[in-house]
């Protein structure tokens, strides 16, 4: 679409300025501070920090391996078999992935026996739970399009089912498996909420250590050096990954309509039934334990925790409340509304700029995706160390929190809007123009209707992301500005019986609000979740 140059420039400048101020500058500041030789030397020689780095690495590797191992069978069943309720199961599997990390952490705290509290097993279980959908959906999408006759050919050549899996299926699925493993590794390497809630003081990752050094120990130089090393590691991983994707490209003849078939043999029916039952149980049990936990009162059940949500409560030291749950709900909703408006305006402008410009669109697109690969802790820490001087002295102002949420959400809005804009047939605009519509009118009549639905979907994503954001908020929160995840984190940090039930009640509220936002998006997009 032809736009006046001034409009085009404005569309690009607004998102670029926002991201330069609230993402680019903070990241540069981290690098500038982290590059200090002394700090890096301290980080690399301190045995405590080295063990933190080692733990971060191996728990991420173990989580990734376990998630891939657990996800392959369900991916196969959901990709290759048609059965009643398949779409529902597929949607259900995705639920843990869209839930805030604090909700997953709280659910596993409610689920696991005290003997597993603060153990590596609890962390790994929660990570597998959270990322299972990544493996099932990424690998399943390719598996559904893989021609089953390739495997049949191998069987007629004398390969046993195991040999077929090992020599044909897995090699062909490798690109999807590598992609899913990379995403899972990235998420678990930068895991913050789950570790904060389930790890206790003994199991600390780089993210949690950066947060601890900043907000508890006030050792900013060391924290900056850690954040810098973390940024390097994540960037390195992303570079390796995009290279690996290109190297692995095997020309597959895919069958885009899918290859799912009705299970024929009793063995297949058993496999499908057992897998579906296991998936439903795995997804539902922790979440229902969370809800049950919110009604636990002493040895029985009751509404004490829910009633206490309204009161200024929570048993803290010296009878001071650790959190004000109802206030946290209102604060969260307020911040989410502001973050959503910011993200939709900036993301929408960016998507238009990318869709309507020929030169530089690719660069803008890539630049806008950067926050997606950066951890929330990096965003929060970066904002904390930069927004303390003129002209942007926002230290101690609550606006930094919705701004941080918007930085995290903008890439999702762009991703929601851009495909819709690109799908508009340019001849529609030509037709409108030949019918006498001026450029502004063409945009209103043709582009805006497409844009509207996508923007609402993007708004839903932004809202859900803001509600559950924990990593960046942990750095920026002040007394009186607690969001729901922060309040849950505080309540779980001082576990009395009532605090625990209250945290579960608040996590239940957060879960319901998040799922409502995501469900609304799904409705609007109108496409059911099939591979």
């Amino acid at each position: 679409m032809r736009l006046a140059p001034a409009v085009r420039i404005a569309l690009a400048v607004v998102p670029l300025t926002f991201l330069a101020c609230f993402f680019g500058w903070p990241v540069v500041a981290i690098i500038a501070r982290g590059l200090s030789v002394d700090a890096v030397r301290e980080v690399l020689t301190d045995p405590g920090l080295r063990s933190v780095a080692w733990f971060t690495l191996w728990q991420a590797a173990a989580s990734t391996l376990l998630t891939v191992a657990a996800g392959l069978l369900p991916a196969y069943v959901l990709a290759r078999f048609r059965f009643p309720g398949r779409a529902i199961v597929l949607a259900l599997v995705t639920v843990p992935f869209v839930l805030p990390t604090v909700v997953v952490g709280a659910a596993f705290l409610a689920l696991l026996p005290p003997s597993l509290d603060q153990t590596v097993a609890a962390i790994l279980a929660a990570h597998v739970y959270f990322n299972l959908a990544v493996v099932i959906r990424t690998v399943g999408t390719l598996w559904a399009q893989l021609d089953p006759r390739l495997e049949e050919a191998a069987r007629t050549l004398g390969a046993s089912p195991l040999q077929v899996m090992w020599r044909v299926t897995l090699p062909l699925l490798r690109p999807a498996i590598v992609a899913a493993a990379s995403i899972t590794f990235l998420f678990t390497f930068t895991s913050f909420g789950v570790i904060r809630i389930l790890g206790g003081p003994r199991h600390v990752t780089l993210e949690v250590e950066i947060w601890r050094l900043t907000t508890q120990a006030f050792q900013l130089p060391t924290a900056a050096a850690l954040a810098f090393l973390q940024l390097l590691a994540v960037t390195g991983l992303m570079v390796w990954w995009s290279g690996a994707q290109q190297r692995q490209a095997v020309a597959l003849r895919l069958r885009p309509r899918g290859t799912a078939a009705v299970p024929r043999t009793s063995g297949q029916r058993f496999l499908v039934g057992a897998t579906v039952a296991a998936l439903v149980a795995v997804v539902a049990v922790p979440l229902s334990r969370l809800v049950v936990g919110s009604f636990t009162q002493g040895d029985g059940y009751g509404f004490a925790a829910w009633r206490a949500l309204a009161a200024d409560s929570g048993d803290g030291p010296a009878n001071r409340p650790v959190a004000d749950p109802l206030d946290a709900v209102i604060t969260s909703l307020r911040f989410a509304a502001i973050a959503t408006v910011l993200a939709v305006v900036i993301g929408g402008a960016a998507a238009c700029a990318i869709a309507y410009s020929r030169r530089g669109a690719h660069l803008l697109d890539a630049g806008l995706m950067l926050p997606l690969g950066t951890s929330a802790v990096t965003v929060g820490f970066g904002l904390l160390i930069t927004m303390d001087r003129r002209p942007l002295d926002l230290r101690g102002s609550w606006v930094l929190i919705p701004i941080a949420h918007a930085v995290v959400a903008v890439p999702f809005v762009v991703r929601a809007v851009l495909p819709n804009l690109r799908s508009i047939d340019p001849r529609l605009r030509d037709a409108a123009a030949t019918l006498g519509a001026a450029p502004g009118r063409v945009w209103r009549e043709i582009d805006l209707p497409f844009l509207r639905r996508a923007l609402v979907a993007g708004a839903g994503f932004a809202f859900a992301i803001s509600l559950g954001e924990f990593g960046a908020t942990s750095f920026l929160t002040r007394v009186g500005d607690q969001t729901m995840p922060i309040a849950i984190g505080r309540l779980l940090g001082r576990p009395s019986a009532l605090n625990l039930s209250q945290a579960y009640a608040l996590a239940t509220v957060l879960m319901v609000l998040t799922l409502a936002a995501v469900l609304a998006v799904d409705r609007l997009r109108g496409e059911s979740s099939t591979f």
Partner: protein
Amino acid sequence: MLAVEDVSVRFGPRWVLQGVELVVRSNEVVGLLGPSGSGKSTLLRVIAGLLPPDAGRVRWDGEDVTQLPTHRRRFGLVFQDHQLFPHRDVGANVGFGLAVAGRPKAEVRARVAELLELVGLKGFEHRAVGSLSGGEAQRVALARALAPRPRLLLLDEPLGALDRELHDRLAVELRALLKQVGIAGVHVTHDRGEAEMVADRVLTMDDLHARARPSSGNGRFPESGGSGTTSP
């Protein structure tokens, strides 16, 4: 000797095969004719063990192999669109069956070279599968199916996607090759000319059904209710 006895297959309410009978003697190639949707490919899948029949048996030399898994049947299958493994080169494709059988590498290499020479693709071992022309891919698929020395070769529209001239040339070659190897085969096609060029004996799908139910006047799809709509 292959014997298909009273085999029936149902997809949902629709009977694709019902009471099918077929005998293929050693060293005999049977051509099987039928329009698309007549169940030819389904029958091949039942014989190969890729699809369990709802009723009936498949025997080889008198032994019931209906329950024998595909990979132990030693029935080779050539697919219409080759289904060459895209992540392996030509040599590894042809050698696949021997490799999974655990044959020594030197033996696999020799056999691959022998078969590639047989199908006229000498020295193609290290070519990428994606770089092959349609006719070359078809020859590789044939070499791959023959390499593990199957006792029966099933050919599912093996020359379907080729242009006319190449098709006719390959049909003659295929016939010569099958006779040279001396293998029993079932060759499925919708092209009568091709069937007559390749096979010793040509049957139609209706022959297979009629033989089973000579007195049945109700047609083959009793549960679909449309008995008068299928004309032979």
